[in-house]
């Protein structure tokens, strides 16, 4: 039997929850400042998904870096890989055609249909706030990916009724609007510092699936800038096991790089 951990932090719960989504069939590449997804990939590979294929920094196929270092795009992450994937022809072919089918993203704004914005707040040409840009998610949203969204700031500024700028296609206007554009797959899950959301199969509206320990449904509702679909029963997010916590803390991310993604890093939920 596996033992549930008693002592874990939000960042650890997020990593573990994301890791559990991955299977040995997944082929995943990671982008920049993606400590939580990379930790989840390494954890999944160490636990239930040994066959998972990771293309480290979108270059190093099946890399074995040992542990998380300074940057998720650094060549340090390619260590012991089986191939340096040429990016333009090879990596982008595999991405464009759909061989690399899984991708994790985050952004400054996420709306109820899982559309994401990291480009501007306000008008594109006269922005109130210029954000970094959509980067890879601008591609991935339109390229049939199974998308996992993570956010360390579940609040009404991030979770908005409608994104100011549609940088990454989720379910567009809901229903079959994504399908009608000819796009397959789409956002699967949204993992935040408060809970886990998925999407209602028909309407494609974001739906609360679980709340993290110590977080109330009401709190999630208050921190979300649109009407979440909330089922009658919302369970607690399954906790990490002791083994998962050990692997994450001591083997995969001993330097705690995953906490860099939090402004006020690493609050214990206990």
């Amino acid at each position, binding site marked *: 039997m596996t033992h549930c951990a008693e002592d874990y932090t939000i960042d650890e719960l997020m990593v573990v929850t994301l890791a559990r989504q991955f299977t*040995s*069939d997944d*082929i995943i590449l990671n982008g920049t400042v993606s400590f939580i997804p990379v930790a989840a990939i390494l954890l999944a590979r160490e636990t239930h998904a040994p*066959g998972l*294929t990771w293309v480290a920094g979108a270059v*190093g*196929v*099946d890399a*074995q870096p040992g542990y998380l270092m300074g940057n998720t795009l650094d060549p340090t992450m*390619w260590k*012991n*890989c*089986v*191939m*340096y*994937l040429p990016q333009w*022809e*090879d990596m*982008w*072919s*595999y991405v*464009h*055609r*759909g*061989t*690399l*089918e899984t991708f994790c993203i985050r952004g400054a704004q996420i709306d109820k249909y899982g559309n994401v914005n990291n480009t501007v707040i306000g008008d594109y040409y006269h922005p109130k706030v210029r954000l970094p840009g959509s980067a890879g998610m601008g591609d991935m949203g339109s390229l049939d990916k199974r998308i996992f969204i993570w956010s360390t700031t579940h609040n009404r500024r991030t979770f908005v009724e409608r994104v100011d700028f549609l940088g990454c296609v989720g379910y567009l206007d809901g229903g079959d609007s994504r399908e009608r554009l000819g796009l397959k797959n789409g956002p699967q899950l949204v993992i935040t510092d408060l809970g886990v959301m998925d999407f209602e199969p028909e309407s494609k509206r974001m739906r609360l699936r679980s709340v993290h320990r110590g977080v109330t449904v009401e709190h999630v509702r208050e921190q979300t800038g649109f009407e979440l679909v909330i089922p009658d029963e919302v369970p607690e997010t399954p906790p990490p096991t002791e083994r998962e916590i050990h692997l994450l803390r001591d083997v995969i991310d001993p330097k705690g790089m995953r906490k860099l993604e939090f402004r006020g890093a690493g609050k214990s939920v206990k």
Partner: protein
Amino acid sequence: MAAKKEDKVMTLVDAVQLIRDGDIIAMQGMGTQMSPLALVREIIRSRKRDLTVVMVVGGIGLDWMIAAGCVRRVLAIIVNLDEFGMANAFRRAVEAGEIEMEEYTEHQLLSRLSAGSKGLPFLVTRSGLGTDLINIHPETTRIIECPFTGQKVIACRALEPDVAILHAHRADCYGNVQFFPKPIWTDVDVFPRAAKKVIVTVEEIVENEEIRRTPIHTGIPYFKVDAVVEVPYGAHPCSLYPNYSFDRVLFQEYATTSKTAEGTQQFLDRYIFGPASHAEYLQRVGGAEALLRIRKWS
């Protein structure tokens, strides 16, 4: 279209089962270089039919397959045996109307495959503008105008072969395929990426750890490979630089005997249908003497 990280080592006989009658086969190779010819011999022995064979430069393996009746259609830019001259079975079959030859410019054919590799419906080229080549396949090449400049370019329709077949220096059991040196020839680059399934024969299967020591030599990642077969001298009578040269003696024999349909069939009987194994084939082409003569590059 993604293959798992699992042991994919199998025999030639099993690997050939991945190919179905009527498939589109993308086959590596040139006139006398680097082609999966042990696998081709097995395809012939298993009497596959109605294949469409895609090559940049069709060579001796294609000619054998045509002579054996496996082929319905060829897509290529040229078919010949380099300095050993014409591919005679190909020539006879086209002239008799027994097979179709769909000739492309190289950049057209590769653009079709590259579009396939990307899941794009087409890509564009200027190659072949003004030639008769673009008129002979209107279903796959068509002149369109640039939406920005009005310039005329040729749209090349995506091509996704069912199976790519290749021979390489070495691989691990998962199908991480390495080349020494690593010539990024178009057929070891675009072909496997475009195909739905990939079969690779190699001189040697090595440990996964060995691959990880020299990732710069890996040309095809395991998640794109469906079958790995160890066949030393698997390209014979073609060359695999630097391991062995092409076999002048066998090429010359084929160039001569293939001048008649009967001679060609006798060649197939002797070298392809006759030997019960790859070892027997190597023995029949000259045994130790053959293996010594192809060690020399000249």
